[in-house]
């Protein structure tokens, strides 16, 4: 792939504005590069170029608070609470941190719980009355990550970028990615798929929680669909150089078809990278013993299904890196039902699992049909559809 070096200003699809309270502001300015590096890394993990980051002081905010927004964002986002002055964040539980520090009689630290800036549903620790280097030296042997208030701001910016990328990704952003393709691939893609449709496809992938780093492999397949062989009988989706054997039903809708093709490349590679030697933690949708609303189901039945789906996938949403596994035919539907509630929970079709990476079944999602006097239409499994 040709790579064109670009400046931040030229490639940023959005401009992030970080507004900081008066006590935290001097620290953020002094360690601006740390925030930028973390934001750059977050953008890179999405396959995007880094955004430009403007930092301003807002005396109306609480002294240690900060707020992140896009420059063109009309709505106001709630401020985040920054670490108290002089506090050090240790990404480990207060019980563990307290136990380590209490064993050293020379230390008189104060350890308090704090939400993890990377995963706010987890509780980590803030330590007072100890210098940063001393805390880091104490916890480095346990692999615990030790952060300053500015690092915590950077991580929050990175997390915000992952969500903002979906909302702010536009045709300019798409054009910048297309410009990085080999000329032949870029031309072939734009001939069949205008830039607004490329932007829509890439936005969909970001919304599905996928990075765009595989776009160079995806583009030739979207440009020339004769390279994709659809087989509903097989179970293996195989990507060969420039070709794809797809074990899933072929969607009639053009946009959905492109999405399925793109996902068949992006999802297995992304899952493979993410598994880091551990099995994938999966919650399986039971489509054989359970009930899924049929096409054209009434709103009441869909609500009935949604309530069960949300309750049963809640543990998956809380688990780090878990996925919900469905048949290829149900994947898009289940993804749409869950996304508004669990933005970071990824729904994957069987055909999108990476080869050679084992799965560990942590739960089953089984919805019961609605109770009523006349029998509900029976849902069909994906196997019976093929």
């Amino acid at each position, binding site marked *: 792939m040709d790579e064109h070096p670009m400046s931040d200003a030229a490639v940023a699809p959005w401009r992030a504005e970080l507004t900081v309270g008066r006590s935290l502001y001097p620290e953020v300015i002094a360690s601006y590069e740390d925030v930028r590096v973390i934001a750059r890394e977050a953008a890179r993990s999405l396959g995007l170029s880094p955004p430009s980051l403007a930092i301003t002081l807002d005396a109306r905010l609480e002294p240690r608070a900060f707020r992140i927004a896009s420059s063109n964002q009309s709505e106001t986002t709630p401020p985040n609470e920054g670490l108290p002055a002089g506090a050090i964040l240790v990404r480990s539980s207060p019980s*563990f941190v307290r136990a380590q520090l209490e064993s050293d009689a020379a230390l008189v630290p104060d350890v308090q719980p704090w939400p993890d800036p990377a995963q706010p549903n987890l509780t980590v620790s803030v330590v007072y009355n100890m210098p940063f280097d001393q805390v880091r030296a104490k916890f480095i042997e346990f692999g615990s990550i030790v952060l300053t208030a500015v690092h915590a701001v950077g991580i929050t910016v990175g997390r915000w970028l992952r969500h903002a990328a979906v909302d702010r990704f536009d045709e300019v952003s798409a054009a910048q990615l297309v410009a990085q393709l080999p000329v032949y691939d870029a031309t072939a893609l734009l001939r069949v798929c205008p830039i607004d449709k490329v932007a829509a496809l890439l936005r969909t992938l970001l919304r599905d929680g996928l990075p765009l780093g595989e776009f160079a492999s995806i583009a030739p397949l979207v440009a020339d669909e004769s390279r994709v062989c659809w087989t509903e009988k097989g179970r293996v989706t195989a990507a060969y150089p420039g070709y794809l054997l797809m074990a899933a039903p072929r969607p009639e809708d053009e946009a959905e078809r492109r999405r399925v093709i793109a996902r068949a490349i992006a999802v297995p590679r992304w899952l493979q990278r993410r598994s880091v030697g551990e099995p994938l*933690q999966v919650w399986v949708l039971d489509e054989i013993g359970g009930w899924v609303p049929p096409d054209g189901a009434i709103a009441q039945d869909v609500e009935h299904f949604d309530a069960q789906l949300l309750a049963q996938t809640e543990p998956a949403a809380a688990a780090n890196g878990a996925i919900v596994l469905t048949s290829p035919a149900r994947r898009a539907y289940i993804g749409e039902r869950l996304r508004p509630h669990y933005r970071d929970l990824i729904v994957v079709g069987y055909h999108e699992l990476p080869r050679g990476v084992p*799965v560990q079944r942590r739960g089953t999602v089984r919805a019961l049909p609605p109770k009523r006097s006349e029998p509900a239409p029976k849902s069909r499994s994906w196997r019976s559809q093929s």
Partner: protein
Amino acid sequence: MTVADLSFLLPAAQDWEARLQVTYLAPAGPSDPNLPADLQEVPPPRLNIVVSRTPTQQTDPRVECRKFIAQTAKAVPGLEEVGSPGPLNFDDGATGVIATISFPATQQIRLTQLHAFRIDDGILTQLVATASESEAARKHEELRKSLQGFTLK
């Protein structure tokens, strides 16, 4: 397989002090017919209960519980106490103490453990029920009842 099936004699060590640990493992779940047959599957963590019985000088199970939590907190990064230890009345009338902790077993799996302690005639019994955090949330009361059901013959 029951505890009786596993009982044994070791004549060479019959004068030595004995300590006992028994592990009960819940049955493995059935395979999922939804999953493709050729999928490489790793069995999920099985719910289990470990019973340990050792001699102790202590008479108060709360002291043993505090000692255990303090030692474990030092050794396990990410350990969290879920609530405070509380009293546990066993079905046979004995009084003990129960604590709940959770900790990361791997990058992706957090385990929850219920630890129950009781002391009978100089013998400390520690009962540990272990489940994945998501499973424990559903089965907490059931696990607690299982530990509560411990009785001496």
